[in-house]
């Protein structure tokens, strides 16, 4: 088991560091002549009005919310799917029931218009 993860313990940092090396190389190779206009925030040529960190619509949060719930649901179901071949019929139906209960939530969100973008 640990053998399986040693590769990943090497692989992820290597992917990270390779990118970091490229960025450092870019830093060294590229010119550096900063000036205020160059460093100003890009706004299609129009002067920035107010801070960049404006408030956002609630809809983003709602989607993230539904996502979290369904993500957890899927994670619950993965062990069930792995054990699928060893399960009796009623156990499989329990997993289906689990999905159906969550589907009620999706249906509710749909009916309440929480899935609309506008």
């Amino acid at each position, binding site marked *: 088991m640990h053998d399986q993860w040693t590769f*990943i313990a090497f692989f*992820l940092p290597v*992917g*990270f560091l390779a990118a970091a090396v490229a960025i450092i190389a870019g830093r060294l190779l590229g010119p550096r002549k900063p000036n205020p206009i160059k460093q*100003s*925030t*890009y706004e299609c040529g129009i002067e920035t009005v107010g801070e960049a960190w404006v408030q956002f619509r609630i809809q983003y949060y709602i989607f993230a919310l539904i996502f979290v719930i*369904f993500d957890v649901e899927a994670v619950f179901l993965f062990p069930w799917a792995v054990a699928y071949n060893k399960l009796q019929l009623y156990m499989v139906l329990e*997993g289906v029931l689990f999905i159906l209960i969550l589907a009620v939530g999706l249906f509710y969100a749909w009916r309440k218009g929480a899935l609309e973008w506008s």
Partner: protein
Amino acid sequence: MDFNFWDPFTWIGEWLLNLLVGWGLAETIALTLLRFAGAVVLALVLLLIGGVLFTWLDRKLSARIQDRLGPNRVGPFGLFQGIADTLKLLTKEDIIPAGADKIVFNLAPLLVTMSVVGIWAVVPFAPTLIGTDLNVGLLYIISVGSIGTLGIMMAGWASNNKFALLGAFRTVAQMVAYEVPMVVVLLVPTMFTGSMSVHAIVEGQSSLWYVALAPVAALIFLTTSIAELGRAPFDLLEAESELVAGFNTEYTGIKWGMFFASEFLHGLTISALTAAIFLGGWQGPGAEARPLLGFVYFMIKTMVVYFGVTLLRFSMPRVRIDQLLDLNWKFLTPLALAAVCVTAVAEKLALATNWSRLGVHIIANVGLLILTLGALWVRARMVRRRFETEQMRLAARSESAAD
């Protein structure tokens, strides 16, 4: 071990291991070193392919589809265009906008690159060539992908730019939304194989590819992957007419190149994953005994999927964000949930009744499709009727107002 032309991977591994042990290293240390070397080689090859070769291939393909020539100046067929571009990006000035959060700003492209490269650790290239056979492979793919989502969020936030932040919000909303049907649909191959290991999933397809058993699931997986990737028709984050450039507006030089290269590599990644999970990976006639042949099969399948995705990309108009989210929440997610339920029942039915497994699944999938189309038809009629009554009411009101 003798050199076996059909299995060079095992041979090279054994040879290197023997060499290291011959130098007096303990076997475990030698193995660890080999793993490290393998990780470095795989990561570098991927970054090179993603950054250099695939940018060229993609531009060439797109040019052909659009009846252009594409890059043809640097090297034969413009093959070295990617290298030239990389050099150009490396020598560009690295601008960090004023007011940006420097550390987070620099960290974001690294995380995005890492997340795309990291997926390849569990992709089986050939029966004897795989980074690591993780027994939670599918969830590992999802989890590494979610680090990329975080990286995009960080990029948008750290730029201190409205466009970047708005782009990041949109991208993240899109990515997390499409992750739901994707994760759900991955339950189907897990059920068939009884394991989450990608290697085991490929081995489980020796007689039948899962695309035959679960065509609906395969289609959903491919669609959601393209959406996660943010390619056309789901390329809202690069919607030039609406957003400046999305979350990477403020990035310049090689840091922007990182996002670019990881997007190309991600395109290859989803093709490889689709090929491995649903199209049998390296499976093919004679592949069990000849790993090199398996590697070739895997590459062919990956390229076929990649070509299909590219063709789709250049022949579809961009969807609107509300259509994009509707497609996900009101179509793909319910369909994915239904597909899992139907498959779970159908597989047990096939086992219990001794009917043909393929037949049961095909019938189940076709039934599901017919039901879906029926539901779509009913809904379309409903929407249309509502629209018509609305129109009629409006017309009546304007008439009475005219009176």
